């Protein structure tokens, strides 16, 4: 099917026409439902953990330690989504998904876990809360979509709450990276300097600065893309409702 689609639609300029997307089979659907349910549950655990810790401690500082392990486990588990796209059971672009998941994993492990001094920062709480709410809604959205019983509330929440949560998450991330910078410079974390046998050098400090700068072109693009999607999806549903 893929071969016939691509041979018909290839126009010599490399861009492919959209092929008829075959949905996942029954087994794949069952697996995806289980995966999404587990992820929803996991992020709910993180949410509950945050609330309990807040109530127990009385303040919102240093709540990271109470949810450190589930956060690492479930955020790393999102790497499976790249495989889902690669195997074609989810109709998303592998590159885009990989990019998104890797940026999350990078922040979880290479910044928050590696630079212990930033774990007490408030910016960590900022992005953890943003991620938690976003992921709970996103995974429940996927679960219900797969079961073809999507409540309007979940769809609305997914395409509306990002307006606040996305900038909130990005601010949290940027502040965390910025807070980590002096410690990285001081300890020379993950950096190799010349001379060495393989004539290679890497400066993690400069790399983090470049990552921060890269947010500037990427964030607005993704944000406006989501806004565009929102207009398309929610107005489409409005039309459907009116026509009934």
């Amino acid at each position: 099917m893929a071969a016939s689609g691509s041979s018909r639609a290839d126009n010599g300029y490399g861009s492919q026409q959209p092929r008829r997307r075959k949905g996942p089979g029954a087994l794949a659907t069952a697996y995806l439902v289980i995966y999404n349910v587990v992820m929803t549950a996991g992020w709910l655990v993180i949410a509950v953990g945050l609330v309990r810790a807040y109530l127990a401690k009385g303040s919102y500082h240093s709540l990271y330690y109470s949810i450190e392990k589930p956060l690492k486990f479930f955020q790393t588990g999102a790497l499976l989504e790249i495989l889902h796209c690669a195997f074609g059971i989810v109709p998303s672009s592998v590159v885009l998904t990989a990019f998104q998941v890797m940026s999350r994993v990078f922040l979880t492990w290479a910044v928050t876990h590696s630079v212990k001094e930033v774990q007490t920062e408030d910016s960590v709480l900022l992005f953890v809360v943003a991620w938690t709410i976003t992921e709970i809604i996103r995974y429940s959205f996927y679960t219900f979509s797969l079961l073809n019983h999507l409540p309007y509330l979940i769809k609305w929440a997914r395409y509306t709450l990002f307006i606040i949560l996305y900038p909130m998450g990005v601010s949290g991330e940027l502040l965390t990276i910025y807070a980590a910078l002096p410690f990285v410079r001081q300890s020379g974390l993950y950096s190799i300097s010349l001379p060495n046998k393989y004539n290679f050098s890497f400066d993690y400090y400069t790399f983090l600065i470049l990552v921060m700068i890269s947010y500037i072109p990427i964030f607005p693009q993704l944000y406006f893309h989501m806004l565009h999607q929102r207009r398309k999806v929610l107005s489409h549903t409005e039309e459907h409702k009116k026509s009934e």
Partner: protein
Amino acid sequence: MHRRQKPSAPEHKRDLAAHGGALSMSHNDTRSFFNFSQLVLSAGHLKSPPVLKHSKITYFEVEILDMQSKKQICIVDKVPPSSTLLDVKHRFHKACPQWYPSRVGLQLERNGPYLKDSINIQSLAVSSIITLYFTDLGQQVGWTTFFLTEYTGPLLIYLLFYIRLSTIYDQVESTKNFRHPVVHLACFCHCLHYIRHLLETLFVHKFSGGHTPLKNMIKGCAFYWGFTSWIAYYINHPRYTPPSFGHRQVSFAALAFLMCEAGNHFINVTLAHQNNSGSKACFPSPTYNPFTWLFLLVSCPNYTYEVGSWISFTVMTQTLPVGIFAFLMVIQMSLWAQKKHKLYLKRFYPEGKFHVATAEPSVEGRQGQGHTTTRISSCFKVKGKESTSSMSHQMQLG
């Protein structure tokens, strides 16, 4: 045909008269009238008809609509049926001067494939009005410009690093440190590689006059220039560490590099000669030159040699960034070679009977040796045809 009938008609009449002599007079009259009418009918035109009377030709009208808005941009009328799409594009360019022909993408239906320039207008026509959808393909650049820019950049950038500009390296360290000879050798090899590419672009490769979007050139240049800066920085750095196995490693790698360069050159020359002589129906065959014997093993030996050059360069300088660059080139060349290989299969073995044996995932595979004789005999049978496919050129020239 008309003229032939005139002299034969009197003969025809004479034959019939001979036959008719035996019959009665009344029969003769009818028959002669019949013969006369036949003569009139078979005589044909009294004067030769005009070859092309303008009122008899169906001119086509080509309506060009914008693909996004479906609004009419212009109508190209009085298009003779023998003209090609390229002629229409030229006429369109005259009407709308900002869309020069290489920038124009025309489709028969929205979201359909782009039509080739060589397509005959008549083959597209369903009625006397043809509707085409126009897409702006963006600023285009010729292949020669593309490759010249892409290859001149690395040449100059590496030399900038080689001379150790004070803004890049610390001046004190630069003057103090002794430079290992491999650094000079690396500069020589690198420059040789790109000078060879430039000379081949200018004198050996024959481009079919195709174009590519400017965006592609920007991407290609960013990739080559960026990586060249990165690798040149490390090789020419004052704190560069020479290879671990010393002179033996350097000389072996340098030899391999030179052999791969020579091989690449000869393959390109062979392919260019084949293009010139027009025997594109034949798969390029190995000649007396030992470097071309790689055609027996792989479909696109120029890519193999290119990859070989970069791997030798990596070993010679023992620099990780060069290794990363070589790895990316391997991926890129394998993809191009696979496409080229499929193109060859489609062109030379359209029945698809021959089994393809791939030597290894990254190296281009080919049919086994047993089919060599069949291939050679089929080369003599099929007449070569010039096919101008710009995509094949893109893939041919790594």
